[in-house]
């Protein structure tokens, strides 16, 4: 089952503007602390990190823990320096990996 991700980045910005980036990805974020109906422990299955590169240079990184709600929503800011691509990379338990890109025009 592939993860669906939604990135919200302004399509255009002026050089030097501080822009907000919003990310949303579908993921159960199973904490590893819950128990099933027979008392068995449901194993942890979470996204553990998200990083963002702006034209290849990392501008943001985060480590997520089971306390992050399902369908992780993470927002941060960056300075619009030049036109190009913002590349997002999520990594998680059980070999989970997802990538998404957004283009920005900076004038």
């Amino acid at each position, binding site marked *: 089952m592939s993860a669906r991700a939604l990135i919200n980045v302004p399509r255009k910005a002026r050089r030097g503007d501080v822009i907000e980036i919003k990310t*949303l990805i579908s993921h159960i974020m199973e904490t590893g602390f819950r128990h099933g109906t027979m008392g068995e422990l449901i194993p942890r299955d979470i996204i553990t990190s998200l990083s963002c590169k702006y034209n290849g240079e990392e501008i943001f990184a985060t480590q997520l823990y089971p306390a992050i709600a399902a369908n992780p929503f993470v927002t941060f800011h960056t300075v619009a320096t030049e036109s190009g691509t913002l590349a997002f990379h999520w990594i998680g338990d059980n070999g989970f990996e997802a990538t998404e890109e957004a283009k920005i025009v900076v004038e």
Partner: protein
Amino acid sequence: MHPPHGIAIGAVVAVLGMPLALAEIPLDQRRSGYDQLSPASKAMQDDDTSNPATLTVLDGEALWGRKAGEANKSCADCHGDAATSMRGVSARYPAFSPAKARPIDIEQRVNLCRTEQQKVAPLAHESRDLLALTAFIGKQSRGMPIAVTNDEKTRPFIEAGQRSYGMRQGQLNLSCQNCHDDHWGQKLAGVPLVQGHPNGYPLYRLEWQSVGSLQRRLRNCLIGMRAEPYAYGADEYVDLELFLMWRARGMTVETPAVRP
């Protein structure tokens, strides 16, 4: 709300021991569950880029264009652009199906298309794909008034739903009416009671941490009252949904909503 005519109301009053009409919420006092949300949850619903249900809607949009079944057809092949063809559809469901001689809900309608037009297996209730499609279709009615039909064909089913609504059940011996007509706005175990309108389904429920259907929510209530829930897809749910949509007529569709 016009009370049912003829023998039905007499029988209902005799069974319940109280006239139904008294406990109803006057039309102008009806409120969407949205009004009782915290500011943070309202913001989550209002902003598509932060509403977790948007992911489900996007999945539905992808499914809409995907060919399936022996007929190798996609929804788009018959219905074209959903923004046009599906506009207002969810707002008038459940709708009467001449083939089934009774109303069907949007989930049943999607599955009828799958089995009869696409020639593919129906989607299971609460499956990721069925939720995605119904959320996507529902979103095309966002902002529109609920407009189910109440005519000689649908009225018996609306009345059946209304009887369900007023019937005490479960170990807690509560009816929907007890909480959602008589005590809306007050608190149940610290949680504010809503009027229980179905105007945002399928929706993202914080308690579920996922998108779910109205039937899932109705089952939650039944389980909460310690009543045996009907199986998914039961006629009782569709009748109740039709009654609830009639009760909410004119109110605005918010699909996909966010609720606690």
